[in-house]
């Protein structure tokens, strides 16, 4: 019986020839990540347990991105705790305001994750790096403390769902529509305890940014991880960023999957997820015209340069509707600079949008776009749970940058193809 990509990576990291689904293993970690919300809790546990040294100062990344630049005194205290720990332990990959970006856009950009590696992060969207053919998954703060101390963590080897992609995306349809469609099809626990293994000839047509968006939201289907095969686009992306040997694992021909889902990319339409679960999907035409108060374009899901280009192509020469606040948040400093060079920031500001320094901010209702009672946002982020972005009665509609930008102009949910 063959193994999936995920199983092969975990077997190697555990020093085993093979692993079986359900097997409990201890794997060696290539990178351990935390942010300004989860790292302080991990530090407290690390110190309470009496640990005095980290396993490898080069294999820990601490990114202050959620409430930063700090929104209040309490969040500033959390950042202070993380900053002091990073300095005390000489953490190489510590990213503070000025260098930081939204963690899951930042780490690939900095070459801190590579094909075949095992990456854990105290943030559920750590599954993003599956786009590079890595095994990456979210953990909690106590796990992060253990991982920082030992460089090891236990895992249950997941069984898998194969997601076969066929064809090619149509204009104004992107990775976000692929993953929203998939979550709508299998539900928010459709891949619980399982890996999502993307495959098929359709993969080649997807840009790296599309793949990051898709892997990013594997957790929204309950998935442990969401992994893509390594191809020329992957190698082109890591070239110049990753300067260490890495290994592209290929799923065995006879790998075993619990089920297979086939997605015909040609047939996908712009898709949104209605409140209050990512599985409540509709094609955009079904809900077009629904009034909105705010648009957010950014986050670890859709704050990359292709996302900004897609939004700019729609906003260019147009104005954000008078009843809408449009907030655009490039995910990293490099993306801000690139957007400036390409004139995208000018397009956004001339359209009447606010452009922010990188932050997770409104995605989790932290700051920079929190909603009042009864308000509604079209957002390129990843969760639309009750109260996620503000008041308990506010609503989030998840969408692609194309849908979000078109909605900002229309003042209501809108189809970018019109």
């Amino acid at each position, binding site marked *: 019986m063959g193994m999936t990509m995920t199983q092969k990576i975990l077997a190697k990291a555990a020093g085993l020839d093979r692993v079986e689904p359900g097997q409990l293993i201890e794997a060696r970690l290539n990178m351990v990540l935390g942010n300004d919300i989860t790292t302080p809790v991990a530090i407290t546990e690390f110190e309470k347990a009496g640990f005095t040294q980290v396993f490898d100062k080069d294999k820990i990344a601490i990114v202050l991105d959620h409430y930063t630049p700090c929104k209040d005194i*309490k969040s500033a205290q959390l950042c202070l705790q993380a900053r002091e720990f990073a300095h005390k332990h000489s953490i190489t990959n510590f990213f503070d305001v000025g260098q930081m970006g939204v963690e899951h856009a930042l780490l690939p950009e900095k070459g801190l994750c590579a094909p075949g590696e095992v990456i854990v992060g105290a943030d559920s969207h750590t599954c993003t790096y599956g786009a590079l053919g890595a095994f990456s998954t979210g953990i909690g703060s106590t796990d992060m403390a253990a991982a920082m*101390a030992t460089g090891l963590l236990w895992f249950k080897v997941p069984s898998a769902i194969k997601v076969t992609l066929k064809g090619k995306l149509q204009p104004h349809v992107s990775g976000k529509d692929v993953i929203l469609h998939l979550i709508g099809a299998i539900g928010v626990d459709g891949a619980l305890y399982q890996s999502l293994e993307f495959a098929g000839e359709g993969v080649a047509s997807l840009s790296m940014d599309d793949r990051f968006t898709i892997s990013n939201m594997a*957790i929204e289907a309950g998935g442990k991880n969401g992994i893509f095969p390594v191809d020329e686009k992957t190698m082109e992306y890591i070239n110049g960023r990753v300067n260490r040997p890495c290994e592209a694992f290929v799923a065995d021909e006879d790998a075993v999957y619990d089920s297979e889902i086939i997605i015909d990319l040609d047939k996908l339409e712009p898709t949104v997820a209605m409140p209050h679960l990512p599985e409540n999907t509709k094609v955009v035409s079904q809900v077009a015209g629904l009034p909105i108060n705010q648009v957010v374009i950014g986050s670890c899901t859709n704050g990359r340069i292709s996302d900004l280009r897609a939004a700019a192509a729609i906003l260019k020469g147009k104005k954000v509707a008078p009843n809408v606040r449009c907030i655009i948040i490039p995910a990293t400093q490099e993306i801000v600079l690139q957007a400036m060079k390409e004139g995208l920031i000018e397009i956004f500001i001339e359209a009447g949008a606010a452009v922010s320094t990188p932050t997770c901010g409104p995605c989790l209702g932290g700051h920079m776009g929190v909603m009042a009672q009864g308000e509604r946002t079209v957002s390129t982020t990843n969760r639309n749970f009750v109260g996620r972005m503000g008041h308990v009665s506010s609503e989030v509609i998840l969408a692609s940058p194309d849908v979000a930008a078109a909605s900002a102009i229309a003042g209501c949910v809108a189809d970018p193809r019109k």
Partner: protein
Amino acid sequence: MKVYKYGANVDTDVIIPARHLNDPSPAALASHCMEDIDPQFASTVEAGDIIVAGPNFGCGSSREHAPLAIKSCGVKCVIAPSFARIFYRNSINIGLPIVECPQAAEEIQAGDQVEVDFATGVITDVTTGKSYQAAPFPEFIDGIIKSGGLLNSLKARGVAK
């Protein structure tokens, strides 16, 4: 030992909304626990109470603040047909007992008096007189629980400095 009952997909944002994550102290987390789906919960919950819920409990964020908030309220145990995997890990790691038992999760009602024997996995609904057998933890995970959490189990093995 009264029961609070909730539906499917109780997410970490309603267990502890992100607006309160800027203060991870147990008392602060406990005071806001479940407030977006049950504003009365934090003021009425008592030590030893139990949460019973639908599938995929704890879905969403990796925030350990979620099981910490529940534990800090004095909740003795969460019973559900299934748990989101990060929440499951976090609960084991911090010592919040969680029990997977679909039949108990479906049949036990809000307000019932319920007892759980963690050694045997037997859940007893004292109100209805019915009992249920929960799935046991795998040996490895049981070892973490018995050591008093993940970090204690690592220290016992001497794998960190």
